């Protein structure tokens, strides 16, 4: 269990980061002694964020107890931050990540290194933010990243189909039709989250895998699989082949961003591999 591993003290503080015309809620976990490295954590999207929340918190506390500060943010449209979900876009999320890194840099000028970490869609956000941040960033960590916006949105829409089946016993609007509706600006509500046209268009168009500007800093891609011998995806292997600063690994963990039979508060293999990589920087 994460919190019983160590009883080393840490400091915790919540605040708002001003971005554009709104506020981003942020939660900072710090070691008592000043940290040299900080990790800014960008979450997954919608209900994946809620299911993964406790793993994020445990990871942040673990880092702080190891002497690394961790700043968790809620992108606008989610958690405690401003904006309704349907008004948030990929662009606002990238702006939030960039704003958080710059805010932390201004607040903690002694930090030597700021690492941006993202999970699922948050990894796509982190990758796009890394382009804008360039040399302001020390490294990039991508947990089970969304490589392709279309595949991701189709996964999201599966839930909509399930809801249709539960409600009426049939699928009245197939997935491709829903995707088309999204792209022409229709709001599709999935389990309370309104996916708007602008957001969907941006996700579909987002291309970070082939963008060399993403990989100017050391980057760790960690893919998460439940199989005993997890294998890297073709996308990860091609990125590693194209960029020498990229390390890609695969770890065995349950998909903690979805409902599971187990109650998952902690991702030990993911944490250990990420911490090891961070400490090697």
């Amino acid at each position, binding site marked *: 269990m994460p*919190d019983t591993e160590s009883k080393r003290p840490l400091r915790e503080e919540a605040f708002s980061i001003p971005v554009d015309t709104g506020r981003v809620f942020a939660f900072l976990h710090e070691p008592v002694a000043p940290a040299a490295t900080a990790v800014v954590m960008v979450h997954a999207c919608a*209900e994946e964020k809620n299911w993964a929340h406790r793993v994020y918190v445990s990871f942040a506390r673990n880092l702080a107890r190891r002497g690394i500060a961790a700043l968790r943010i809620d992108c606008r449209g989610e958690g*405690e931050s401003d904006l309704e979900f349907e008004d948030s876009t990929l662009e606002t999320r990238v702006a939030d990540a960039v704003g958080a890194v710059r805010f932390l840099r201004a607040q903690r000028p002694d930090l030597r290194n700021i690492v941006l970490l993202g999970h699922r869609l948050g990894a796509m956000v982190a990758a796009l933010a890394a382009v804008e941040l360039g040399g302001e960033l020390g490294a990039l960590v991508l947990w089970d990243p969304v490589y392709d916006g279309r595949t991701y949105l189709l996964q999201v829409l599966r839930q909509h189909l399930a809801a249709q089946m539960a409600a009426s*016993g049939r699928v009245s609007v197939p997935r491709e039709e829903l995707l088309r509706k999204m792209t022409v600006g229709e709001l599709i509500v999935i389990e*309370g989250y309104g996916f708007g046209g602008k957001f969907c268009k941006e996700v579909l168009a987002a291309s970070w895998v082939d963008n060399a500007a993403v990989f100017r800093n050391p980057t760790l891609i960690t893919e998460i699989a439940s199989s005993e011998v997890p294998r890297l995806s073709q996308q990860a292997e091609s990125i590693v082949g194209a960029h020498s600063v990229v390390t890609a690994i695969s770890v065995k963990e349950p998909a903690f961003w979805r409902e*599971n039979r187990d*109650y998952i*508060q902690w991702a030990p293999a993911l944490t250990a591999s990420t911490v090891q990589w961070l400490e090697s920087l």
Partner: protein
Amino acid sequence: MNQLLHIPSHSGVDMLYGMLDCPAGEQGSWPLACILLSPGVKPRVAPHRLYRKLSGEFVRRNIPVLRLDFAGMGDSQGVYDAKLLADVYTQVQAGQHIADVRAAMDYMAQRFGIGKFLVGGLCGAAITGLLTAERDSRIAGLFSIGMPVVLVGTESAAVRPPTAALLTANREIFRRKAMNPLHWVRLLTLQSDYGLLWSVMRESLKRGFQKAAVWRKDTPPENQTGQEPAMPDFLDRNFVRAIFKLANSGRAALLLFGGTDRYFSEYQEYFAVPWAGQIAAVGDRIELQVVPEANHVLGEPRWIEKAKLAVGDWLDRIVLPAPASSAKQTKSLRTEVITNFERFLQLRNQWTEMLGRSSSNSVTLTWEWLTTWWRVYGTDRQLCVVALWSEGRLVGAAPLLRRKRLALAASIVPVRRIELLASGEAPGHQVCSDYIGWIAEAGTETQVVNAVLDALVAGHCGTWDELLLPDMQLATPMVAALLEACRLRGLDYEILDREACPLISLPAKWDAYMEGLGSSHRYRVRRALREFEAAGGKYHVAQHADELAGMQATLMSLHQTRWTARGEPGAFGSSLRRSFHQQFMPLALAKGWLRLGVLRIGDQSIGAIYNLNYANRIFFYQSGILPQDSNALRPGVLLHANEIAAAIDAGCHEYDFLKRGESQYKDSWANGSSELGLVRVAKPGLSNRLTKGARRARMRLAVIKRAVIRKKDGQ
């Protein structure tokens, strides 16, 4: 505007986090707050930020909303001891997070002066709010979305029959699919989800048509008989007990459901229909609101809007008018100061009914306890019971007395003192009446307190310098109302002699309680029970008046033998105290409150316990244990183990060890505590300044004395 609150947990180890959504205007002008609790294992915003969407309905009515993360969830500290999600749900339904809710209320009371709360939220939050309301009278109402009424995530849940609504929905889905050739193609080309298909068929056919039929055969379509129906194993008994307790105490509950939520059909079929008679009896205090077509988490904007309307309507109709109606009662309250004991004796029925409607329903405030106490200790005291009447109904009372002679505050300053009935005995003769205080029908605390203070200030109980109100439970609307009223009147007040009462919030099953104990204590309990059984031991609880005297003598003898051997006077050394219990026990037995139990091996009694079972709470009062060279049989462990198990079987919700004192062993049984304290109220002036000055001087003197002794010992 919102702010993150850092709330110390009751364990003192972890910090809980909660986001406070504040109304506009001045902080501290809030008479009521709402606490929305972690829904299941999700953080404090809830799925699709449901809580943030609903919070505005409270905030715009000047009700701040605290969205709280339970320990080990959301942002809060702590680790959750559960491997499976099902384990979490089981623990939540057993009341795992009651202490967290109470810690949040304590914090809100201390920081913002709020004494009344609405609690609840979605699913697990709803049941936690309800179970906390059962134990904490500061909760004025329950706000629930998707309340689970069956046991979720346990073996019971796995065998619970599908509801008729669910079976109908499944049949409808299969009927539609059977009409569609594409689904046959999918089925025959191995594209269907056969696991799902099989499980639905198995549920529908095997359990649905058999077990559901068995259950429904025994259950009338709608039970209006008023008799309690049989409870199937899968029904959450904690829910049934707690919802009626809440409603019977005059507090309101809003039960909001999505119309297609499985929990709604379970609520209807397993609770609302079989318990219709009992629900009707509590009138509109249990209010059901259904958002048609909505799912469990209200995951569509139109459903949220309907939920907001329902919540706003409930707040406006039920919750917020309460102060207005209470204010009306103030005008019509009639004050009677009872100084004649015969008159007090006549109030038996009215007193009992009023106490049952109050939030301070404790055995030490019963007519039986108070009148017995007065008979034994009334000498040299003047009875001053302030009774408040409204349209012929007793709605509140302050059971007080005054000394006929001046008391010495801090042993030095002569003061005219008014005290609580059942307190202030001479040292060595104390009965130790924990949980005493003033009484008011739930929701009328402020009015009752003001009426009593009006009477006291007007001198209807004679002139006085200080009121001493010891052993009141501090985290109650009564104490909050009293302190606020004193502040507004410019009376000096302070809380002294705080002390914790370790207690057990009892789960539904003995095994669940045992699992929550520390491993070494659990081992001791199991071993003691095993060895007692192997030795042929028997535990017997007094049932009849004719066995009472003998068992009473056994208790007193065992207790006195042990304590006098240690050079202590023992609890029954005082003739006054013995007399009190000899008079009270028969009354308690007749009322069904007394649990006087004796452990025997052969002809030898090795331990005895004196508990009181009142209003589904067990109060551990005293015990006696056979002094022995070795502690092999552990009578102390056996007495509590037997009593706790019996309390769980009887459906009690709390086992209270009363004040801890020197008895650290109580902590090894407890999973929570409540705090008692002495509320001292004084008229400002010379007497008050002298009293406080003398007390400070005595404290300094004591410190110096201890330092001198330490120095002397060191030399």
